[in-house]
């Protein structure tokens, strides 16, 4: 898997202007976009998923061009084949857990086919959601909501998974447990992942490569491999970045 991205986007809210200049390229399977809030990491993730259209630039996911302003390419979100885990999970409140997970497999008119039903059952088993199949998301705990949202994102078998601050909606003790659980799940599904976080511990425990964001631009990139070559660890590099960001 290879993520390649070089984009620009000018945004305006009131009189404030924000310039996003985001560029990185990595062939690692676990990428973390790390930085304080408002530094442009979530906007970058949204651009990868096709929810935000950059003013100019190129985005390639696994060699597949999903955006290229020069060639007029802009693959719509529905055809990018990336799963997206929203910060607040965005489970459909009017549907049950089972219907949420099967959402991307069901045709507009008609019902889930046999293969789709099997896939939903399989995912509910992996995520331990069988008993909650008929419940509405509002009755679920934070951890259960996250599992349901992950299962929903993985159901259509995406080529990559994008996670936007996956643990920020959880309490601290649960956060640690879900972090381990997520690592296990990602290993199980063996899917390339890009995760946005402002938490250095999360970045450290998850990343093969960390892309550091500051004020809308990429301020640095660290990979486990490069750090090891220099005889450092990734966590040292991240800690140095944190010190820089909050000095």
């Amino acid at each position, binding site marked *: 898997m290879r993520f390649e991205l070089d984009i620009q986007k000018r945004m305006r809210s009131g009189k404030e202007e924000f310039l996003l200049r985001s560029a990185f390229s990595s062939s690692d399977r676990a990428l973390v976009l790390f930085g304080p809030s408002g530094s442009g990491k979530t906007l970058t993730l949204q651009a990868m998923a*096709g*929810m935000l259209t950059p003013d100019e630039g190129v985005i390639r996911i696994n060699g597949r061009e999903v955006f290229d302003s020069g060639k007029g390419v802009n693959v719509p979100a*529905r055809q990018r*084949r990336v*799963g997206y885990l929203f910060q607040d999970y965005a489970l459909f409140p009017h549907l049950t857990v089972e219907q949420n997970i099967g*959402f991307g497999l069901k045709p*507009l008119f008609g019902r889930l086919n046999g293969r789709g039903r099997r896939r939903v059952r399989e995912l509910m088993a992996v995520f331990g959601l069988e008993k909650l199949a008929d419940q509405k998301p509002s009755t679920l705990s934070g951890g259960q909501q996250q599992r349901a949202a992950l299962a929903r994102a993985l159901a259509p078998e995406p080529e990559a998974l994008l996670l936007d601050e996956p643990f920020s909606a959880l309490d601290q003790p649960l956060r640690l447990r879900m972090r381990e659980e997520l690592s296990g799940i990602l290993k199980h599904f063996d899917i390339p992942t890009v995760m946005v976080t402002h938490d250095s511990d999360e970045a450290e425990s998850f990343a093969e490569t960390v892309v550091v964001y500051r004020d809308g631009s990429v301020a640095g990139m660290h990979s486990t491999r490069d750090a090891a070559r220099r005889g450092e660890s990734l966590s040292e590099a991240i800690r140095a970045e944190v010190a820089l960001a909050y000095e």
Partner: protein
Amino acid sequence: MDFVWIDFTDAAFVQPLLLTLKVASLATAAALVLGVAAAYALSRRSFIGRDFLDAVCTLPMVMPPTVLGYYLLVFIGRKGVIGEWLLETFGIRLMFTWQGAVIAAAVVAFPLVFKSARAALEGVGRQYENAARTLGQGELSVFLRVSFPLAFRGILSGCMLAFARAMGEFGATLMVAGNLPGRTQTLSLAVYSAVQAGNDGLANTLVLVISLVCVIILMTTGKLLQPRF
């Protein structure tokens, strides 16, 4: 005053009632389709002239019904822009028909659906629609499976208000469809005629029925608008 109740099977009561239900239902259905479509377009797209279009869509709510009636005469009257074409091409006459009453009621009811639908659709979190898109869904699917169901209660309450408004429509209907007993005389027009003719018993019954229906609609609407999730 004469409070004598009239026979509920009396044609003077039944005919306007059935006609009113037919006209108000069809007008509400038309207002629903057009109102929701307009609301979705205006809440999801930003373009030059959006505020102007929003004002135009709301206009029938604040304009005198007689002015609306006049506009309708200009458009669908026998010599009107659309009316003349309809008559010559299809032989369809809208003036002084119940179909004309449907159009008048639909125009008057439209802003109520439009306003409610717009507010309800604005309230649907964009992340739900984006979630559906990342799950491979096209725009029609996003609307039918996510936006519409999540805005459904607001839209339904708008429809009920629109139905009540369509039932009570008087001014524009009078100008476009007239007040022909058995053909275009709806409940509110029948009340007017009954009072004019000194038939207080009929007027009382009609007024009571209209009031009751409106109270039921308002109470149901209030229930619908209570938060759910």
